[in-house]
């Protein structure tokens, strides 16, 4: 009887098996890698209504971050400035500039109730609770520390147009929450760009991290310790998904 299949088909079972396994592994890797926020979110750089340069204001002119983002240390959200904040300076500075036209339009529309509509860059899903102030300053007394602006937002002082620097993925949150030490700095260095810990401060990081994540705190957001409820950095599921 004539052969039904050509000779090369002898290899097909082997090829299908190997190809199937490799294909599955490749698919999982592809989704893990290219569908993660490292690729989908980092680098998000929308066009803002005003050609505002952080590199100029925060970098060259060394304005404090908190001049515009007034709620960064106090509020659940750091906030973006209204037109009035711009006008504090720009009522005098660069009055006739073409680039500032949207600011003046917003200011002079007659009623003063139409602020600039900045495009939000750092977004978290609704089901994740996040409080900005809790991250900017934490702990008490000698254990007080902060996470610097640049840790999450990158070198804002070098960005002409702001882009998302970190993925804001859950694994990214958890990486820091389970080992916060290396990201801690003195509270007076919160807005400092390009800061790095000296040897003394590296010791402090270890000490403070231990107060944020005492052994056994992994399982729960809040524990009744020493007569009061304490919230730990490793907050369990309910710390963020309340």
């Amino acid at each position: 009887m004539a052969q039904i299949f050509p000779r090369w088909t002898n290899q097909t079972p082997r090829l299908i098996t190997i190809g199937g396994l490799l294909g599955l592994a490749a698919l999982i890797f592809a989704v893990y890698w290219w569908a993660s926020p490292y690729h989908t979110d980092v680098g998000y750089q929308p066009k803002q209504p005003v050609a505002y340069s952080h590199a100029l204001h925060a970098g060259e002119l060394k304005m404090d971050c908190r001049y515009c983002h007034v709620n960064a240390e106090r509020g659940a959200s750091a906030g973006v400035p209204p037109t009035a904040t711009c006008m504090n300076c720009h009522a005098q500075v660069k009055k006739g500039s073409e680039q500032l036209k949207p600011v003046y339009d917003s200011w002079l529309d007659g009623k003063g109730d139409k602020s600039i509509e900045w495009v939000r860059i750092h977004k978290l899903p609704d089901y994740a609770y996040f409080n900005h102030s809790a991250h900017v300053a934490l702990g008490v007394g000698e254990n007080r520390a902060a996470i610097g602006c640049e840790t999450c937002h990158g070198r804002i002082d070098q960005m002409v147009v702001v882009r998302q620097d970190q993925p804001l993925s859950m694994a990214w949150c958890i990486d820091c929450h389970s080992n916060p030490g290396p990201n801690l700095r003195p509270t007076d260095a919160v807005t400092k760009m390009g800061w790095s810990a000296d040897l003394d401060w590296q010791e402090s990081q270890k000490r403070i991290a231990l107060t944020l994540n005492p052994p056994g705190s992994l399982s729960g957001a809040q524990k009744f310790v020493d007569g009061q409820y304490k919230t730990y950095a490793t907050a369990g599921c309910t710390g963020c998904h309340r």
Partner: protein
Amino acid sequence: MSTATNDVTLPDDIKLRGDVVLPDPVQGREALVRGPHDFHAVTEMVCKVNEAPLKATPKPFLFGLALAASGLAMFGGYIGYLLWEGPGIWGNNNPVGWAWDIVNFVFWVGIGHAGTLISAILYLFRQKWRTSINRYAEAMTIFAVIAASSCVALHTGRVWMDYYLFPIPNQMGLWPNFRSPLEWDVFAVNTYFLVSLLFWFTGLVPDFATLRDRATVRWRQVFYGALSLGWRGSMRHWQTYEKAYQILAAFSAPLVLSVHTIVSFDFAVSQLPGWHTTIFPPYFVAGAVFSGFAMVQTLMLPARHWLGLKDLVTAKHIENINKIILVTGSLVGYAYAMEFFVAAYSGNDYEGFTFLNRMGGPYWWAYWIMVSCNVITPQLFWFRKIRTSAAWSFGLAFFVNIGMWFERFVITVTSLHRDALVSSWDYFVPVTEVFYLVGTFGLFFTLFLLFVRFFPVIAMAEVKMVMPQADPHWEGYSHEGEHHAAPAAASGGHS
């Protein structure tokens, strides 16, 4: 060396069974294949089913397939409805969070176990009679696991998040909860499906090659040729095949025990009275084998009748299956009694209440359906006339199928519906779930009927190995015997 047939002891009621059984002159017991068939006759009998031209497919078969396929189509629509509306289309209420979704899952997974027991454990124990029934028992296993998976994959609510079940690296840095028996279940059922599929396919390869070699149409040549993986039947092929088959049997054998053990952990690891019981693993395994063998009977009896396979699947097979149903049914009955004993002996009020509530509470009817189908029915198989009769076997197996579905209903729903907080007691009433169950049957039978039409339903190569002709000492039936001397078989020793 010829063994005379008058040395062979045949059962006394051999005439009564209506079988003409030729004795196996070498083994000294009745032959497993009825009638004077040689190897070629076996091939013809089995291949006939698959080789009928597509247009000549029997009308009753097409009717059955149409019925099953419409059930499957309905299931597709039902799944769409479920995805659109969510599990709110079920009657699940506050204390009864698990109902038909889990009942159907456990029911189907349990059914699969008979196939694995037949194919693996009976193989390792050299039970030669298994060869006539293992192929479609294994097919039943695979299709039952598919039906079970369709239940468990759809009950999660947000079905599109089902990939959370698997430990896939992800941006959340999260893994499934490996301490949960529900996660063990994912691995148990997936392993089970994969090993069963490999085992089934390995056994099919030589038979696919037979169909390929006999094919007269191009598409059959290509179809069976691709499936038979270049099988030529050389000594080397057979040696590799036997090794692979034994290894897979060794893999499968522990799965008979482990899979339903882990399914029982879904209940037993929780702390609910009625679920939190150490007897659950063996009790579930016995129940699984029990329900599976009943399903084997349900599928096999019509198949051997309509496909003309009565010479290969004989009264002896029916009887052996019924014996296993009797054993496992008695084990299940013992487990029911033991649950009550432990509830009483523990002195625990909650445990005691749960079981009294099972027997006499609002779901008393479900409990007594379960007991009458599962405990009383199999006891009838003590009577030889009943356990060798196809009609009785079919009827009683049907009751066992019903009873085993109700067992899972009783365990799941009655344990939940009256929990520790009296104010939240509620009565579960199914809403659209009947379509869910019917849909899984549609899925199962569509696959099964397609299997019957296109795959060899009996392991031809294996059956030939257990025929007297395959024995090296075979020298033909003795002519002085009072039983039928078979000219066809007499010359068929090495054909």
